[in-house]
């Protein structure tokens, strides 16, 4: 079955391949599946997949996985971790079976959807999926009224290495989030620095899509860059980067302490509170990112931050925390909107903002860099752009600090 391998978060565990999967502890867990179908039922695209998770396990047991490899079905997997989170047998589907199968699906695809093809080519060549110049990755820092230290120019040891990630380095709205984040670091007196133009995509989406070679290439690159500098911890704005560093990079020797900006700032809540002087008269609903929420359990930290802002009223969507509906951007979904549309699938970002609007909130708050552009686009498509705006939690905090 090819050379597909999985080296999960535990570097001491033996390499699991499709060939030895059923002999491994993780594979034996798969045999405990009771075929209840909760995974397929909770999957946001379970209704359109020829092979939802339950059926993939059934195909594995029947020795018929080849059929799954030849199907495009798993291109509809947006790596939202719902199937794993809801499994009554606690089968680690998204950690074990799905990545191995997706890798084979990816290798067997007759033709890669054009948008995705370009994003992967760009990520390999430029270190970001949007074909922006790697020499301009840190260009946004010139728009701030205080300097940001770039380690290549000033390699002294630093407390926080801030891994900005692609979307927040290049996308205009992502840059807004970066400016807000920098202001928060600055206000808290955090000793921080960035990699600047040396930084490249962490590669998590490539791995979850099945493009393991690209993920390995980016992992090797970023690990080599990290090893050049001395820092106490990595703080990243990317929920997907956080996920990659926490769960995937350890197999490549990653041993650094890593935090995502939202829980990182929540830990500084008491220092932040006296600075949140401006009353924001917003009704806010928080969208739980799949990586930060379901996969890593950070449900309360963003809510604590939002509730600390004077004037903010927090409203919950019916699908919140473990049941949150994915924005559709994970696992390569960010570059499959055209493909999904052509297949007649509903865009998940539209499904999500429809629900957000029903809460009556005027702000949908997010923590993941993908969600800003996805939700802003969805609001425009649905004609709701006057009813609701999208803000990262750090943007709202920064706004509340402005006097």
């Amino acid at each position: 079955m090819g050379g597909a391998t999985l080296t999960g978060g535990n570097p001491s565990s033996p390499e699991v391949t499709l060939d030895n999967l059923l002999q491994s502890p993780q594979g034996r867990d798969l045999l405990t599946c009771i075929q209840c179908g909760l995974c397929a039922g909770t999957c946001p695209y379970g209704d359109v997949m020829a092979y939802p998770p339950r059926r993939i396990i059934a195909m594995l047991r029947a020795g018929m996985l080849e059929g799954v490899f030849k199907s495009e079905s798993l291109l509809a997997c947006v790596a939202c971790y719902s199937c794993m989170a809801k499994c009554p047998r606690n089968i680690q589907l998204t950690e074990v079976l799905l990545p191995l199968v997706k890798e084979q699906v990816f290798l067997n695809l007759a033709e890669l959807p054009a948008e995705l093809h370009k994003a992967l080519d760009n990520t390999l060549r430029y270190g970001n999926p949007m074909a922006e110049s790697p020499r301009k990755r840190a260009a946004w820092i010139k728009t701030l009224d205080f300097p940001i230290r770039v380690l290549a120019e000033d390699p002294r040891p630093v407390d926080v290495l801030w891994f900005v990630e692609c979307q927040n380095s290049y996308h205009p709205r992502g840059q807004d989030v970066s400016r807000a984040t920098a202001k928060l670091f600055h206000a808290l007196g955090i000793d921080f620095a960035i990699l600047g133009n040396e930084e490249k995509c962490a590669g998590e989406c490539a791995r979850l899509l099945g493009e393991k070679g690209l993920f390995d290439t980016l992992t090797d690159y970023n690990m080599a860059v990290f090893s050049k500098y001395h820092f106490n911890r990595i703080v990243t704005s990317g929920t997907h980067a956080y996920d990659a560093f926490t769960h995937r990079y350890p197999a490549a020797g990653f041993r650094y302490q890593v935090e995502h900006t939202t829980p990182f700032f929540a830990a500084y809540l008491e220092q932040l509170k006296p600075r949140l002087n401006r009353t924001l008269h917003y009704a806010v609903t928080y969208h739980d990112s799949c990586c930060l929420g379901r996969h890593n359990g950070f449900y309360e930290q963003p809510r604590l931050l939002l509730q600390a802002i004077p004037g903010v009223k927090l409203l919950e969507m019916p699908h919140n925390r473990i049941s949150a509906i994915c924005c559709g951007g994970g696992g390569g979904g960010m570059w499959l909107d055209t493909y999904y549309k052509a297949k007649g699938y509903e865009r998940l970002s539209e499904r999500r903002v429809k629900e957000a609007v029903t809460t009556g909130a005027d702000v949908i708050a997010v923590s993941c860099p993908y969600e800003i552009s996805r939700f802003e686009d969805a609001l425009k498509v649905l004609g709701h752009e006057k009813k609701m705006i999208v803000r990262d939690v750090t943007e709202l905090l920064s706004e509340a600090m402005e006097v």
Partner: protein
Amino acid sequence: MNILVVLRMVPDVVEELEIAPDGKSLNLEFARMVLSESDDHALEQALLIKERDGGTVTALALEAPEVDEVLFAALAKGADRALKITGPKEGVTTREAAHIIAGVISSEPGLKGADLVLTGTQAINDLDGLMAPLLAQELGLPFLGIVTGLVPNFSARVALATKEYPRGVRGEFEVALPATFGIQAAEKPPRYVPVAKVRAVMKSRKIDCVSLTETVEPGFSLLQVLEMTKPQPSGHAEILEGSADQTAGALCTILAERGLL
């Protein structure tokens, strides 16, 4: 049934382009090089023909920064051989490149006698699309450019080539083989090659190298670049302010003034 694909590395316009201190050329030290898009289509067309009709595909390129990655990717996609011509000076012109490449094709074992010589119909540094016709001239082969479909019949020694014209008109041409074609677009978009496959090819395959011994005489290119400058802004956009009615009215006035309404 040998197919030869000439691949060209061109400046990557994702990066800023800088003028060299001589004021007549690009600063190639600053530029990054990337495979010319229509050459990628030429390679894809060659691979499609190989998959349909058999034969071998050889990818050929002049030495340039990042060309090894491109040649290994060509091998990973299905090319049988990758060949790099080492030794030409930086920034050769299209005519010089065609002369060098034709010289290698004529002398290198396994290249002479290729049934199809394909390259992109244009490149960003060859907007006139001269590479394919110059190669054809040097090799003494027929040439057809701006081709969007190519179906060879190797046993009959002919190929049916499709060209597209304005207003949806298509032309089909029967061309005697061997021949040279400038490919505008392959029948399918160039394929994606997984990075792991390219990495494996880098370990298991090699790029053949041919050293260039002959030099191209100065003045061979006939054309001389006098000056190269970045575009200068010559005008400014006018932003219409006001309500939809006001801006629509102002826009109509402007269009009427310019004779467009």
